[in-house]
């Protein structure tokens, strides 16, 4: 499969100097063309930081301390997004990677009409487009996400939460980006609405052919809607594998813990259990594997040595990777 976005050794910190907190540590991840890549983890695992860090959208005091984000455009040679000038980055944003944010409530500017917010992005990226065609395009996008185009003149407060999130999805697709990052896109919505919107998005993806990075703490949604899943803990990726593999046969004890903390939607019944303890404080990360204080299977090397993400020694090892001393890896990934 052809890659679209390659994250290489990405490091993100909050704050400066001694008090800096490392929120994302040496992350390597590849998004392939046309796939839905799920990113799961508890709050504070660094998954949202990773997503915002990709396009340099982290608010101060966030700092990207190292790494590259290689983007492969449809035509032409790949380039590093983190090396773009402000002007080039502005042009890159939304045209190549769009984001659907957490909390649809606050993602729309309350004082402007939907139409204004849909068309200003067209105007910014293509100043020569006529007003008529901008409006036509905005209507088209609303129709695409199942909103009647006569809601163009509505203000955000006049729409329901579900409609607002649909507008955001329509807005994200308006420039036909290659990559759509979705950060907890449906957490604020009820379960029925969640599935309806996600289903619609997957259908759109098949039609328009973009790739998705889908971030959520809800692993059940990922299992259902994504092709591959990466699980983050303490700023690192601890396991990465096809969704069905994770669901059937997770290797990392943390992944297993996450899986057993929600009821299965399909397949056999399983026993529900949470993970004891709480996510680590990023400022005072444990030595060795950061999960070891909570891990039921921790043994001697875990508290002193950091396990490297690599291919496990198993029959399906070529398609997956894990960072755990229980599963010695053959070669590091990345």
């Amino acid at each position, binding site marked *: 499969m052809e890659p679209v976005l390659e994250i290489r050794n990405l490091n993100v910190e909050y704050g400066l100097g001694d008090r800096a907190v490392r929120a994302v540590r040496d992350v390597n991840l590849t998004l392939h063309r046309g796939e839905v890549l799920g990113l799961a983890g508890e709050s504070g695992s660094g998954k949202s930081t990773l997503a915002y860090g990709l*396009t340099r*959208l982290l608010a101060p005091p966030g700092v990207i301390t190292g790494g590259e984000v290689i983007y492969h455009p449809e035509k032409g040679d790949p380039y590093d997004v983190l090396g773009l000038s402000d002007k080039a980055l*502005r042009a890159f944003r939304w045209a190549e990677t769009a984001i659907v*944010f957490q909390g649809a409530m*606050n993602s729309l*500017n309350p*004082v402007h009409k939907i139409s204004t917010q849909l068309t200003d992005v067209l105007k*910014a990226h293509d100043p020569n487009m006529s007003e008529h065609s901008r409006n036509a395009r905005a209507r088209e996008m609303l129709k695409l996400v199942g909103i009647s185009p006569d809601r163009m003149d509505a203000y955000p*407060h006049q729409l329901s939460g579900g409609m607002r999130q649909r507008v955001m999805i329509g807005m994200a697709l308006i420039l036909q980006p290659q990559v759509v990052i979705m950060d907890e896109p449906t957490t604020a919505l009820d379960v029925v609405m969640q599935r309806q919107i996600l289903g619609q998005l997957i259908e759109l993806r098949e039609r328009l052919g973009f790739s998705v990075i889908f971030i959520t703490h809800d692993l059940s949604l990922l299992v259902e809607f994504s092709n591959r899943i990466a699980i983050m803990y303490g700023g690192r990726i601890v396991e990465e594998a096809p969704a069905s593999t994770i669901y059937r046969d997770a290797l990392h004890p943390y992944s297993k813990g996450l899986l057993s903390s929600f009821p299965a939607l399909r397949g056999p019944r399983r026993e529900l259990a949470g993970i004891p303890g709480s996510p680590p404080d990023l400022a005072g990360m444990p030595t060795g594997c950061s999960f070891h204080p909570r891990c039921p299977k921790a043994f001697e090397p875990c508290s002193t040595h950091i396990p490297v993400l690599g291919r496990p020694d198993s029959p399906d090892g070529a398609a997956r990777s894990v960072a755990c001393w229980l599963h010695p890896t053959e070669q590091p990934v990345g």
Partner: protein
Amino acid sequence: MKYFLQRIAFYLFTAWAAITLNFFIPRLVPGDPVQSLIAKFRGQLSTEAINSLYVLFGLDDNKGLWAQYVDYWKQLFQGDLGLSFTFFPSPVADIIGDALPWTVLLVGITTVISFLIGTGLGVFAGWRRGSWTDGLLPVTTFFSSVPYFWLGIIAIYLLTGPDSFFPSSGGFDSSLVPAWDQYFIPSALQHSLLPALTILISSVSGWILSMRNMMVTVSSEDYITVAHAKGLSERRVAVSYAARNALLPNISGFALSLGFIVGGTLLVEIVFSYPGLGFILLQALGAKDYPLMQGIFLVITISVLVANLLADLAYLLLDPRTRKEG
């Protein structure tokens, strides 16, 4: 529309409360001010004028409080605010009518300019945090802690003099007669510059600070990040997304603090002997001219109410959430 009607109802209620307060204030005055006035202007007061004064001061023993209150309203609706002691026998309404335009033009225009400049600078300071604008904050804090009138005194001391462009007092050249002509208008403008500058300097910092804080607060809203993610220009994100939203609470703040600002500006008029309401108020205070004081208080209150109503109207136009369909 419902929002607007509610506001109107509130302002009518406040106007009623202020007028009623005004009705009771002179009833606190110890002694019989009318008697001493009659003595002062022996023989010059008509019976009618004396009656009007008694109604105003609530010394009409023949009537109950309620009847007095009704009479007071009747007088008010006829535009009768009583007679001034200081400028006897001019009616209070006439004196205020002469002074009001000066105050409205000076204070009104300067306050609006100050709000606009302060808000503009605040947008800049809030958006570019950590730049040189943060260094302005201590300076502006100092200026906002100085009483308006003291700054006026300093301005007179430093900037006026026999050879200075700035006149030190008055609203126009004393050799001129007020008229809308090419002599009077430039003179009036020249006289208003220094008082206006004083009000501007001491009031602008408050707006800078509050707008800066609102910008900082709004800057971390999700829709600002979305605007950046959309690749909009810096200018559009700052103005159309951040400032546009930060402006709304600042307008409410503007409306609410008008009552406070007016108090300070009256003193500036006093320092500059500017022929507005503040200057007249000083004279009324010196002469214990209660009808004039009351009239001035009433007019100031109503002006502030009207200004508030205008600010509400602006808010209504700027915030779609207060607008209801239909």
